[in-house]
């Protein structure tokens, strides 16, 4: 069965938006918990969440002050913020609406319900009172949709582009989360060495990786081992290596995969060579910057190769 480039494009973006909504919810959830744990005065600011998402410019269009409510409104309810939960969910739904034919019937129903839920609840979940339940619902519903697709989709092109979209978005978000850890701690003059482990632990939590970390590495949460673990652990579904391997696996059966695979392999090599334990925070930050540039390149190549191929 052939797959239209346009349909592949929409499936890929549906997956990216669903993953983005889930990851932003996870991150926001973990960060809210973290802030509650850290003694007043030394907690890192809310602007970090905005910088994780590279959304400073979009933020500045609507808000001036980086206080909790503004930032949360921006992340949860703002319908102009391309990285926000409301926008991601809406975009995911638009992409499913036009690809219903190739997806299991329930997917549309559940994505539509997720959309209706978000529309009804986003605005009133900005404050701490309802925030937890809202974010929990977003994560749970995204996971259900994902699980449904994984258990019913035929392993054909549709499945491949969905998986690539998920993995690429997830790798992107995971590195952003690490970058934040490093970023928050880069400001050495803030004297919060005591809260370092708290920050790293909450970041692990946002990746659903705390339990695995404890079992694999141990109960002590230290910056270097967290970075190493989240980057390299091949069995952790949210590790960068896992995502890159997953992308590679799905690209191999596609026609014209040479260019895309070249970037994936180059990125995997760079990742292997990066030594978290000896790298300075500054080096880590630069590595992540470079990594995200590679992900963008990969996304562009995927788009050129399969979504808008030259008409010859």
């Amino acid at each position, binding site marked *: 069965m*052939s797959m239209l480039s*346009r349909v592949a494009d929409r499936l890929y973006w549906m997956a990216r938006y669903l993953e983005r909504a889930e990851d932003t919810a996870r991150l926001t959830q973990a960060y809210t918990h973290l802030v509650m744990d850290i003694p007043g005065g030394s907690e890192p600011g809310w602007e970090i969440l905005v910088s994780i998402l590279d959304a400073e410019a979009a933020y500045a269009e609507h808000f001036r002050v980086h206080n909790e409510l503004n930032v949360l409104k921006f992340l949860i309810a703002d319908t102009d913020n391309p990285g926000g939960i409301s926008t991601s969910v809406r975009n995911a739904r638009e992409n499913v609406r036009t690809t219903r*034919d190739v997806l299991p019937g329930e997917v549309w129903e559940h994505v539509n319900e997720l959309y209706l839920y978000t529309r009804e609840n986003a605005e009133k979940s900005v404050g701490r009172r309802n925030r937890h339940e809202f974010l929990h619902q977003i994560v749970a519903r995204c996971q259900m949709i994902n699980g449904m697709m994984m258990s019913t989709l035929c392993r054909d092109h549709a499945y491949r*582009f969905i998986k690539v979209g998920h993995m690429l978005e997830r790798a992107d978000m995971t590195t952003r989360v690490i970058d934040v850890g490093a970023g928050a701690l880069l400001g050495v003059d803030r004297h919060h060495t005591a809260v370092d482990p708290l920050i790293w632990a909450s970041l692990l939590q946002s990746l659903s990786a705390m339990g695995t970390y404890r079992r694999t590495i141990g109960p002590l949460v230290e910056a270097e081992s967290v970075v190493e673990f989240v980057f390299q652990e091949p069995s952790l579904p949210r590790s960068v290596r896992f995502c890159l391997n997953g992308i590679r696996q799905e690209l191999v059966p596609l*026609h014209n995969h040479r260019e895309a695979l070249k970037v994936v392999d180059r990125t995997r090599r760079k990742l292997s060579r990066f030594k978290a334990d000896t790298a300075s925070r500054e080096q880590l930050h630069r590595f992540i910057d470079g990594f995200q540039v590679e992900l963008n390149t990969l996304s562009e190549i995927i788009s050129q190769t399969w979504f808008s191929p030259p*008409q010859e």
Partner: protein
Amino acid sequence: MNKSWKSYKNTGDFFDELIAPGGGPRVVARRLVNLLQELPGEEMAARRAAAELAIRDMGISFTIYTEGKNIDRAWPFDIIPRVIAAKDWAAVSRGLAQRSRALNRFIDDIYNKQKILADGILPADIVLDSGNYKPQCAGMSPRYGAWAHICGTDLVRDKDGKFYVLEDNLRVPSGVSYMLENREITKRVLPELFENYSIQPVDDYPSRLYKTLASLSPRDRRRPCIAVLTPGIFNSAYFEHSFLARGMGAELVEGPDLFVDDDECVYMLTVDGPERVDVIYRRIDDDFLDPEAFRKDSVLGIPGVMRAWKAGNVAIANAPGSGVADDKVVYAFVPDMIRYYLKEEPALASVKTYLCMKEKDREYVLANLDKLVVKPANESGGYGIMVGPHATRAKRAEFGRLIEKNPRNYIAQPTLSLSTAPTYIDDTVEPRHLDLRPFILHSKETWVTPGGLTRVALVKGSLVVNSSQGGGSKDTWIVEASK
């Protein structure tokens, strides 16, 4: 009898589809009416609620465009089916097939020898000056001489119960998916009726459509590549486009998915590279089909597709230019066409039509605006129509001026008394007016759907059945009068 039926009467002013003039059910509808009249009132409501739920679950919707917004609405459906006896239908069906053959001969003639014009059966300027005549199509002769492969013909039933053709939709007729879904819903909510009735099935339409389209393929392949071309999600019939694509296992494509290569073949862009398309079932108008040939600003179409079609490398259904026969002025001449091309008498009646371009007709129309229905020659969807007896004085005066300004653009017909059928409104059963749109498939052979889409004007006394203007629909049964 439950109380929702108590006040139902056949007043004799209209033909009622289910109830005879005496008040009892017609023979073919007897079991249906008896069952519904014996259902307790709350059971009727429960069946309707079940139908509404089914419509929501199945995602049957249509889109209307108002106040700058697209709204996705649940499909309005009345649970009481309309019943037609198989022997009555057989005659209608023959008439529809005859009409489709004549119309296709006409289109083929107009784009080639134009014999019918040379023989003076109808005036050349009526056809050639019409916006529906596409000079770009001249000289083409598609396979089997078939142009309008899918036709939706609107029928109404006058006071005497006789069927009349109201118009032929030869461009991109829609509604067939609702015909199929209506049957699905009825099977769910009135299952007991299917035990006692022998109702002609409709659900093989997608496979019939597939066969019709596949027969047009320029390449001899076991499974030709068929693409359903939609303008996109914002089109009011997108649901149907997607439904038919799924039903045929065909690709649902938009203009930018297709391109014409140097070899003048049409390809679709897939992740495995370009794949050649054999047949395009297009659901966009001629004007938007090919910016090279028609409207240059169209972003819905495929540049060069007309070249590919003329080179015989792709089939397009309906063929571009088919609309030339879908014109309310040309309509008046269809009986003559049937006699001219087929040497047969028309088996289906047409409605007496006054052409405002003819001086005598125009005088009559202007003098009788209060009795006539005036229609623009060229609109669909029930827009721009004036129903004389229901219109205000100002509205009639306005149409009088429009006609004098542009007589070619208007026709008028006597007001028909559209038939009625019992319709469940709130908690009573009341008569509502309806029409019927059967679908005719035409390639090597001609095939007519058993029944079609019955549209019903849900507003009391209204004659406007279009879903964009408050219309609903009913399941339509063609039943064998057995036992």
